[in-house]
């Protein structure tokens, strides 16, 4: 027989005004298994808690029900009191007779009857409660940062500065990301390279940062505090330890006519290359698809000219396993393409803009390269088709963004500001040129942002036309822009020399694949989902994984850097402890009964369920069952409701506990 103690709180008069607490005590005292039932004015006060502790000792209680306020209010309080009295805290439950009873009912008779019922089924539950021990998880104090753009760089530097090892993985040959491609940045117009490259160098020189460029994430296993990450280091064909970065190989490479993706294909580069002069690391990589040596076997000039003998044509991809305790995902974004819709893409292109076939219709990032002093034109704004200086430039905002019919309904957030910036850069370089901007709304929340936009309109004389563009077509050497001015209510036609589209920020192609490797969730646009939109904006629902930058949604540089530092702070908070302690409300598998249908694995929102092989003494496979990793389980219990044989049970909410309550109703 259980020995349950029931403690009924008056809560001053909050409960006792409508609930006859004495009667509740009298009735519940007679319930089977109840050793003692008391009522008291304020159970949460020190004397109240002492009453509980004393009763646990005196009556050798093996379970406690506190009938008082909501467990959301004082469950911790009373469980701590129970613990102090030597009772496992999970053997103490609250019966909510205040918020759910005395405060919402007026009839004393009804309220008292209900309170008795609530205490009754809570007593039944406590009888089925099991003592639970907190779960501890050891922590590997090393972090992985995925992506070497400004988000990844910031997060890596912050964590490394706090004294922890960081592995930074970048897919391209150099870190820098999109920010390295920008010319000037809003709202201050400082040169992007000037503020970016020092940070890149810091990464390269930081003793706590291990940098893997030209590398990708192959596989991720494990859980918070204990991830195993396999990194694929793609064959660079250049020995990083030997290369001095002198650049002779690049200068001598006979194959120089390869489109330079970093310059948005406006310029060219050799087959052995660094994407841009300030690259970190300054070690070139051989583009095997375009290298004569790899294509035909003939050539080998770079090998001959390389003093230190760093060229290695035979290099293979390498797989490296890195143990880490936390992961920051900063994999960035891609830009919307107005070309025709590929079969697997949800996004329609812009047929009305010629599907990208008109050469003098470019996107904003290409304009950045044109405006950049280190760009293919040396900072001169010249149009791609014939290299002439454009005298009339039309900027079109919201291309792809906020365009449900094209597949995207969100706002890309950064385009209003960078288009305003573009009109200024243009005006500064071509004084007699005229910039037009077609826009839906100018969205400029942010410090000094609206002022910046106003400057573009009022001082730099960009003509803002509120309306959409219906068609672009080539007419001679001009691009005709047909649009509407909805404020004036007229159709507008502009013969432009150059058209710049503010194309939408979209998730990286393949973002879903990375998410699947990491076991994190993503929205319908493939942007990664934070655990809570307001209160957990940098955490993933998967414990130990954090988000930084535009992989979570469109963001400008200040927001990206803030989030990166926030993610770093979360990692440091985690690393401040040696062991992770968490509530033991997790699911456990009864391996004897589990038939291994793995329905639990399919529904688990946390990816906490793994397959486990049960073998006999000789190593023969008996069966495969589910295994719930307690470090990862979030405790929702969806697995148990799904399991046909109930071979997985959520501690704290077992079927026995719940059925006991229902039966006691």
């Amino acid at each position: 027989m259980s020995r349950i103690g029931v403690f009924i709180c008056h809560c001053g008069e909050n409960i006792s005004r409508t609930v006859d607490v004495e009667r509740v005590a009298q009735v519940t005292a007679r319930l089977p298994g109840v050793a003692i039932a008391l009522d008291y004015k304020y159970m949460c006060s020190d004397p109240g808690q002492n009453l509980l502790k004393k009763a646990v000792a005196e009556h050798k209680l093996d379970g406690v029900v506190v009938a008082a306020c909501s467990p959301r209010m004082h469950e911790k309080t009373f469980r701590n009191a129970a613990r102090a009295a030597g009772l496992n805290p999970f053997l103490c439950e609250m019966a909510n007779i205040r918020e759910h009873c005395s405060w919402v009912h007026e009839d004393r008779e009804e309220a008292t009857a209900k309170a008795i019922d609530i205490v009754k089924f809570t007593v039944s539950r406590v009888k089925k409660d099991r003592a639970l021990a907190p779960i501890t998880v050891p922590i590997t104090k090393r972090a992985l940062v995925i992506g070497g753009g400004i988000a990844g760089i910031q997060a890596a530097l912050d964590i490394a500065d706090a004294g922890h090892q960081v592995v930074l993985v970048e897919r391209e040959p150099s870190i820098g990301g999109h920010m390295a491609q920008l010319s000037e940045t809003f709202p201050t117009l400082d040169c992007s390279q000037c503020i970016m490259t020092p940070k890149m160098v810091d990464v390269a020189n930081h003793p706590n940062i291990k940098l893997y460029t030209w590398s990708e994430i192959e596989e991720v296993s494990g859980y918070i505090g204990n991830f195993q990450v396999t990194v694929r280091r793609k064959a660079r064909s250049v020995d990083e330890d030997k290369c001095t970065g002198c650049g002779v190989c690049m200068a001598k490479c006979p194959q120089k006519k390869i489109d330079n993706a970093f310059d948005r294909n406006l310029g060219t580069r050799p087959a052995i290359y660094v994407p841009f002069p300030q690259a970190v690391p300054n070690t070139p990589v051989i583009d095997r698809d375009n290298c004569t040596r790899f294509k035909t076997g003939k050539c080998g000039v770079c090998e001959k000219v390389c003093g230190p003998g760093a060229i290695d044509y035979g290099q293979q991809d390498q797989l490296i396993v890195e143990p880490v305790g936390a992961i920051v995902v900063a994999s960035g974004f891609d830009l919307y393409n107005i070309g025709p819709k590929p079969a697997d893409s949800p996004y329609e292109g812009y047929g009305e803009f010629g599907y990208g076939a008109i050469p003098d219709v470019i996107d904003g990032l290409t304009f950045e390269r044109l405006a950049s002093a280190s760009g293919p034109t040396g900072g001169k704004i010249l149009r791609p088709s014939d290299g002439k200086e454009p005298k009339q430039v039309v900027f079109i905002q919201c291309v792809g963004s906020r365009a449900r019919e094209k597949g995207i309904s969100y706002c890309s957030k950064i385009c209003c500001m960078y288009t305003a910036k573009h009109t200024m850069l243009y005006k500064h370089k071509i004084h007699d040129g005229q910039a037009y901007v077609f826009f839906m709304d100018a969205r400029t929340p942010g410090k000094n942002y609206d002022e910046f936009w106003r400057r573009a309109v009022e001082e730099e004389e960009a003509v803002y036309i509120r309306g959409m563009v219906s068609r672009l077509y080539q007419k001679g050497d001009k691009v005709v822009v047909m649009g509407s001015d909805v404020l004036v209510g007229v159709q507008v036609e502009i013969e432009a020399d150059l058209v710049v589209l503010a194309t939408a920020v979209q998730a990286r192609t393949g973002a879903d694949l990375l998410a699947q490797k990491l076991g994190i969730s993503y929205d319908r646009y493939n942007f990664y989902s934070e655990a809570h939109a307001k209160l957990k904006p940098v955490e993933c629902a998967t414990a130990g994984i954090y988000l930084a930058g535009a992989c979570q949604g469109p963001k400008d540089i200040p927001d990206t850097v803030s989030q990166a530092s926030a993610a770093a702070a979360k990692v440091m908070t985690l690393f401040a402890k040696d062991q992770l302690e968490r509530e033991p409300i997790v699911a456990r598998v009864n391996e004897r009964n589990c038939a291994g249908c793995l329905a639990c694995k399919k529904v688990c929102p946390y990816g906490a369920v793994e397959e486990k092989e049960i073998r006999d003494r000789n190593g023969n496979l008996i069966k495969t069952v589910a295994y719930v990793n307690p470090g990862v389980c979030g405790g929702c219990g969806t697995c148990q409701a799904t399991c046909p044989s109930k071979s997985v049970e959520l501690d704290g909410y077992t079927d026995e506990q719940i059925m006991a309550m229902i039966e006691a109703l």
Partner: protein
Amino acid sequence: MNNTAQKHDATPLVAESYYAAVTDALRTEAARLLSEGVVTAVIGYKEGRRHGTAGPAIVVDPARANELIFSAACVNNLALYLTKAKKGVAGTGKIAIVAKGCDLRALAGLMAESQIRREDLHIIGVACAGVFGSGADRREPLSAGNLAGKCRECSVGAPEGADIVIGTLPPLPELSPVEAEELARLEAMTPAERWAFWKENFARCIRCFACRQVCPFCYCEQCLCDRNRPQAVETTPRPAGNMAWHIVRAMHLAGRCAGCAECERACPMDIPLNLLNRKMARELKELYGHEAGLTPVEKGPLVIYREDDDQSFIK
């Protein structure tokens, strides 16, 4: 439910020679598989002791492959013998199994639920014109009059996706869907009438659990309904417990049931169990477009969701 109106239609659906030809081909294939060591056992059917009946057979010796048969009496869903409930057969190497279209659906379901692996199986598909319904006079050939109810609406006569498919069916007549009609009849009733219908049917249940034993998807090592801590479902064959058992059974099979209707065939009390399964299959098709098919679907309709699922029933 073969009502008398259809009984008079005794035109044979397929010629006797069809079964003879399929049986021959089946024996040759089984003998080959066993003698070449491709498989360690063939699960199939053999002649039953009474005329016109057949039962499951497991053949391991190529010399005995000629015991295998295929006929309209091959009612059993052999997928059952590959499940955990019948551990003996599985795990002894690659196994060949004779599968009608409906059986293949069960195999596909078991694969999706990690119970069997495709690479461990050699599936010998048989093109099937249907099997005898309960109470059929086995001396007569298979006809619209003595066909099992489920077969009247079968859409998987030829089991596509098997390693080999034996037999080519002649064109079969379109038959009135008696099960669907019965479902429609029940759906047209008031809730009280339906309750009365099921109450009476379930009241007959003697909890022999034949429906559970014969179901390929009831492979749990311990059935929820046999547990007593807590007891989710009363175990005695009392009306209340019976009702609970059959509701839980239908719910656990929802989105998984392959529609072989073995539960209904095995029921000694003639409870129309397949109606429940069909109802759930129809609802899940309407709600989520799910249908039991011949190829494994990794996630069934009740272990997956869409953010825009219907929620018109939620306040």
